[in-house]
């Protein structure tokens, strides 16, 4: 009898009652399809100029479809600022292009055709050295343009410390032949997430990815026997790990996604995509968003009145720079 009571007490202490919520997405494939068609046509008709405005329109729509605790998110970026970002990037691109052409020719003239390959390699390295800058600037811009409950998000990280984290993780990854990749990703994520603020309160991420390195090694070893499907299970494990180590004040995150459900989701999405020659892309995207959100559970109660506005400014150049590397900065934590 006493034992049972003790057990109950322990259970009660270990699992205090959390309010568990889900985030919901209201957008439909048809609406997304319409927006993308209009954006594409206007971009073609304006020889590309409209693409900045189209991007802003798409994001404004996307964020307005996400609901959490009864309120939608909002996107505040404008086509004009994105366009200016594109122009700045174009100028940078032209300068880099000219430098590339000039150094290639100079190297060739000085050392013969063999030097050309080396100088090309150096140029590529220089361009990829921009990657951490792009990630920081891109996130700074993206966060500054998102709000919820009238309060803006912001990213307060700096390029220099992030570049060191990036470099260190990259070296670990290279020396471990890729098995250290989760460490690289987790240390990057830790910097990115724990410098992300909603109003005056920061998110936190406590993972270091070391457990995931073992999981990745296992997935690699099992890959030949599972036709590579072990990576699907690994990706779910990594995703679950990331959510479990992410917090915002009293909020906890977790996912009920499993390797099996993700595999089935991916299989159906692929059928839809290839069966329609890519025409179903918007529906596939929406399906995937809904799938992800349906499996994401958010526990805990926010004291909203205690979260105060503290917006930071940012320019859209980072957005364009991040785009160059195909990074899509979003609310993904």
């Amino acid at each position, binding site marked *: 009898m006493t034992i049972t009571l003790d057990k109950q007490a322990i259970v009660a202490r270990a699992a205090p009652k959390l309010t568990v919520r889900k985030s919901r997405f*209201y957008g439909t494939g048809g*609406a997304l399809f*319409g927006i993308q*068609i*209009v954006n*594409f*046509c*206007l*971009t*073609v*008709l304006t*020889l*590309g100029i409209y*693409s900045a405005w189209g*991007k802003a329109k798409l994001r*404004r*729509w996307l964020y*307005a*479809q996400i609901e959490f605790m009864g*309120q*939608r998110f*909002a996107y*505040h970026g404008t086509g004009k600022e994105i366009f200016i970002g*594109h122009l700045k*990037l*174009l100028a940078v*691109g*032209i300068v*880099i*292009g*000219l430098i*590339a*052409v000039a150094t290639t020719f100079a190297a060739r003239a000085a050392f013969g*055709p063999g030097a050309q390959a080396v100088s090309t390699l150096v140029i590529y390295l220089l*361009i990829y050295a921009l990657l951490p800058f792009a990630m920081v600037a891109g996130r700074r811009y993206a966060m500054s343009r998102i709000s*919820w*409950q*009238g*309060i803006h998000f912001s990213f307060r990280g700096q390029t220099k410390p992030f570049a060191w984290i990036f470099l260190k993780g990259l070296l670990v990854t290279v020396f471990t032949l890729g098995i250290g990749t989760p460490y690289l990703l987790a240390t990057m994520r830790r910097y990115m997430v724990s410098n992300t603020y*909603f*109003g005056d309160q920061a998110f936190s991420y406590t993972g270091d990815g070391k457990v995931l390195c073992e999981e990745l090694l296992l997935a690699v070893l099992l890959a030949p026997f599972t036709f590579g499907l072990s990576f699907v299970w690994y990706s779910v494990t990594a995703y679950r790990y990331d959510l479990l180590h992410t917090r915002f004040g009293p909020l906890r995150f977790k996912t009920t996604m499993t390797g099996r459900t993700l595999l089935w989701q991916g299989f159906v999405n692929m059928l839809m995509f290839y069966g329609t020659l890519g025409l179903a892309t918007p529906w596939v995207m929406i399906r995937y968003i809904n799938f992800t959100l349906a499996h994401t559970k958010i526990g805990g109660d*926010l004291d*909203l*009145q*205690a*979260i*105060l*506005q503290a917006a930071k400014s940012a320019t859209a150049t980072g957005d*364009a720079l991040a*785009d*160059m*590397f*195909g990074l899509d900065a979003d609310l993904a934590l």
Partner: protein
Amino acid sequence: MTAPLPRWRGSWFDGKQAGAIAVWVTLGPEGLQLQRPGQPPLAWPYAGITQTQGANAGEHVRLERGDAPVEVLVVADPGFIEALRAAAPDAGFAAGLRGRHYAAWVAGLAVGTAALGMAWFMVGLPWLTDYAARHVPLAAEESLGKLVQEQIVPEDQRLSDAYRLKAIDSVVQRLIQGRGAPYTFRVVLSDDDAVNAFAAPGGYLVVNRGLLQKTARAEELAGVLAHEVQHVLHRHATRNILRQLSTQALFAVITGDAGTMGQVASMAGQLGALSFQRADEAEADRDGMAMVRQAGIDPAGTVRMFEILQAEGQDGPTFLATHPAMDDRLATLRKLAGPPGKRHPALLPDVDWHRVAHGPHQEAK
């Protein structure tokens, strides 16, 4: 008793903290009224309100007012936006197109864009590149041609036997003699078995060893060279490169892919494939033959050369892949060559053509 004013449920955020305050919204003649529980109502004049969301179907209407802190009002009711637009028709509140009107706009835009795009690719772009190609400065054409020639035949794949090169050059000089061509023609001999020749912009020509080996006399080579010289004079390659560049640049801009911008910059060196359209080939054939005849060279050599090329084509080398309808072209050439029988002095009487065609060590090969 008067009927109560219609009112909408809304959420108001003061922009200082994240908590929502439930309000009742009514639409007055001058602005919105926000009734807060236990607090005095807020007045939002229409003139100071910015709408950030709610134009798309199914979206909550989101309104902002003020400047740091920005206050926010969100109304979820789908009927609110029309009521708001009716109450303040001049304040610029947008509802966007809905339902059938929206579908018609999307479809119309897509069809219009496709039609315009096709017209552009079939008429606009060719016209523009033709115009540009005619006005590219000579110096630019020459540096482009040099680049292309280097790409097709790198330095270490060129044959350098002076006797062969001198003979080839004599043929070119004879063809362009007295024509005042603006280009300096530079021919390189490529150590390549394929029976082929190329014309890069600006007078940079390439003759493959494989083609040279097939010739029995200088007159035959003259036929090919006259053809390639005409490609240069008509700026066919320059125009094709411009067309290719502009198409790819356009795609890069349309897809908004800044990454491909760098590729466009470095692409000038990768334009190895010099393929011409049928009309270009016909033009080069016709004017090449005229050139041969004006230079007093036996046109039978040209016909013979094209017969060789046609025969080679059955084995599928590259020349014919880019030179379609060889039968028709040969027939035209035979017609242009005029009646046979007229005597022509030998083109290069003092040259041992066998040595030119097969090189100094032909026995070893």
